């Protein structure tokens, strides 16, 4: 994947650049573009087609968000029909669609971001500014599977030794409580040993640094600068009101000298991920053909 070679800080900025306009603007152009960009990217990168359950769940979410708005919001000029004496308007349905697209596209981008930036990379980002927190999180991440494994081992052993005996609820609860209290003792014991091992390796000396295996290279700097430039332009156009959009009483889109430029820039941004991935693939196939 192309994104694996990019510094996590750049990826994080990219994620924000895509989602912030989609979240805060009312202009559906942003949402359609963000949604389309996410879907295209996922088609290119997901190893398997999405599970039927995921698609169903997303569709239900989409329809629910679309329906809720017109049920409670009766503004808008184009009345379609009446429900319980309230007008269901075309505009409020459109607004519902906009909300649904907004929620869905942000969700999809979150999923993409999660794939691009592992917890390890996120920690590396955090480590620079909050080294203590990053260390704490990393050691907790290590402890969780260890505790789970330990709990399973104890439970199996005790089951085998007949602690849960009769299988009655009271027996199971009492047994579970015993195992849990011993697990706490064990983890205190473990913590003492870990802290000794940390001290033995010089933890607590003054001036601890934080190391990251991710290098912020020249290409990352260029990408970062480009991103910041595009962001500034888009936010500028948004702030000038030339990207404003209103649904009530009728759908109206503001237009100005820079509206088209804003839309083009945002689309460029949103499709960059998919484009890079596609280009990367073609390139890779080409390289491979030469092997």
């Amino acid at each position, binding site marked *: 994947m192309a994104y694996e070679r990019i510094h996590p800080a750049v990826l994080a900025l990219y994620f924000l650049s895509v989602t912030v306009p989609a979240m805060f603007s009312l202009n559906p152009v942003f949402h359609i573009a963000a949604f389309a960009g996410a879907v295209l990217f996922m088609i290119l990168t997901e190893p398997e087609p999405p599970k039927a359950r995921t698609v169903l769940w997303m569709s239900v979410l989409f329809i629910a968000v679309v329906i809720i708005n017109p049920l409670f919001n009766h503004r808008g000029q184009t009345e379609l029909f009446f429900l319980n004496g309230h007008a269901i308007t075309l505009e409020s349905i459109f607004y519902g669609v906009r909300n649904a697209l907004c929620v869905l596209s942000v969700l999809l981008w979150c999923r993409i971001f999660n794939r691009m930036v592992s*917890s*390890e990379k996120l*920690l590396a980002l955090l480590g620079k500014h909050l080294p203590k927190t990053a260390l704490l999180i*990393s*050691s907790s*991440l*290590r402890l969780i*599977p*260890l505790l789970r494994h330990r709990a399973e*081992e*104890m439970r*199996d*052993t*005790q*089951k*085998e*030794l*007949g*602690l*849960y*005996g*009769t*299988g009655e609820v009271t027996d199971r609860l009492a047994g579970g409580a*015993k*195992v849990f*209290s*011993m697990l706490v*003792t*064990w983890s205190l*014991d*473990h913590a003492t*040993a*870990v802290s*000794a*091992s*940390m*001290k*033995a*390796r*010089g*933890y*607590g*000396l*003054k*001036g*601890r*640094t*934080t*190391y*990251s*295996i991710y290098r912020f290279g020249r290409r990352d700097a260029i990408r970062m600068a480009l991103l910041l430039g595009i962001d500034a332009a888009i936010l500028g156009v948004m702030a000038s009101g030339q990207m404003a959009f209103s649904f009530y009483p009728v759908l109206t889109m503001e237009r100005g000298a820079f509206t088209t430029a804003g839309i083009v820039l945002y689309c460029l941004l949103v499709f960059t991920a998919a484009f890079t991935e596609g280009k990367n693939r073609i390139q890779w196939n080409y390289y491979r053909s030469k092997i």
Partner: protein
Amino acid sequence: MELLQVENLTFSYPDSGKPALRDVSFALAEGSFTIVCGPSGCGKSTLLKLLKKEIAPYGELHGARRYQGVSYEELEARVSGSQIGYLAQDPDSQIVMDTVWQELAFAPENLGMKTEEIRSRVAEMAAYFGIESWFHKKTEQLSGGQKQLLNLASVMTLEPRVLLLDEPTAQLDPIAAGDFFAMIGRLHRELGVTVLIAEHRLEEILPMADRVLFIEDGEIRYNGEPGGIGPFLRSVSEGMAAGLPASVRLYGLLGETGPAPLSVAEGRQMIKRYANAIRDIAVTADRAAGKPAVEIREAWFRYGRNGQDVLRDAALMIYEGEHYCLFGGNGSGKTTLLSVICGVHKVYAGSVKLFGKPVKAFRDGERNRGVTAMLPQDPKAVFVCDTVREDWELACKTMGISGQEREKAITAMAERLGTGELLARHPYDLSGGEQQKAALGKVLLLNPKLLLLDEPTKGLDAAYKAELRGILKDIQAAGTTILTVTHDAEFAAECADRAGLFFDGAVAVSGPVRDVFSANAFYTTAACRIARGYYGNPITVSEIAELCQKNGKVTS
């Protein structure tokens, strides 16, 4: 030049009448390799911890500790932090971070190194230790041997001049332990690191050492050449001498003189001095096979629907009253087989029968009362109460024993295992060997007809092993069937009737222990390897000695 010096060191823990270390003096020369041995609880761990300032235990201390002539009290934190490396026994409790590369960077980060410096230090260590292929893995996914190598690599990123190692391989299987010792040997040879190692597996490290310290009751009793430790230990106690390499024990039994052979190769040289007209020792007839206690046929098992098969068409027969030992590499599925026998997991195909009755047919809890009981690899998992006595009482409760009878059962068990004074203590405060005995006591109170043991000798010293052997022989004599999963070939050779090798999800070889060991070249005892090709069927050191003496010396 002396790198580390200890003079008249006496140390007592608070609230303890007896000092843990008494008048200990020795010095480590730069580039030397020293082994500290002694029975469990002799004070060798305390000594190693006292030499690492950051984790030195709290207590009353007299005498002097010096590093490069500087007293520990005045030693700079940065110097002692980076130049004196320390590694403990448990691989898991020394790993701090989530991924391997973070763990390797942890120590250099503590020293405040710059990113570029850390990058080269980490790369160097990962390459030297052969960690590259698992550099990006989560530490959780590593095997025990890999974890301990990672811990060593992490200490080495500090570029220490002295390594203090406290029984670093006690929790590892023999193959991983061999890899670890090989790495220690390399660090010593190639980087000139000074090593002080507490260890009772002397078999592999004695040839590397240039000095051995023997500590008993907190005092140094022997401080000298590795070659002299054999005669010395035999003069002290039979139990400790059992921890010596097979070749050294053989040397002692034969009453040889001159330098003791330290390795298998040297041991082979030694027995060539004896004739080999009589090649085999007389074998008593195998015990008549009783009724089957465990009967596994065509068993298949996997963890989870999409997992891999751990048991593949496994078959195993164990007869009533015998002691069966099962060998096999780490992660080969031996422990899984035990869990299938005791009913914690169920096979998806095939049959498992206990004493002629399918495991499935036992009612809830019935199997745990008087049929099977298992001692897991980590004895700590057995305890759920605040004292050993409460845990034992819980076992009695499971068996439905109470009142006077319960007291009687507990007292009898404590007497049998010699654990009377442990009953009032918290299980986690016991030493490894004591924990093992206390856990075994709880398991035995369930009065099993079939006792399952998972690596019972892990981390035990020779004296404890000998004690455990005695206990198991008693239990077996009383009619209990025993199935032991172990890596410890010496242990199996001493007490098993039959043995099997577990490989690729099934028992590949199975037969009387003598046949299995004398046919195997690697998974066998050191005694077998010494005798291989020269004598026929001896599997223990005493058997070789017997043959040597029967044949007499070659006169030339």
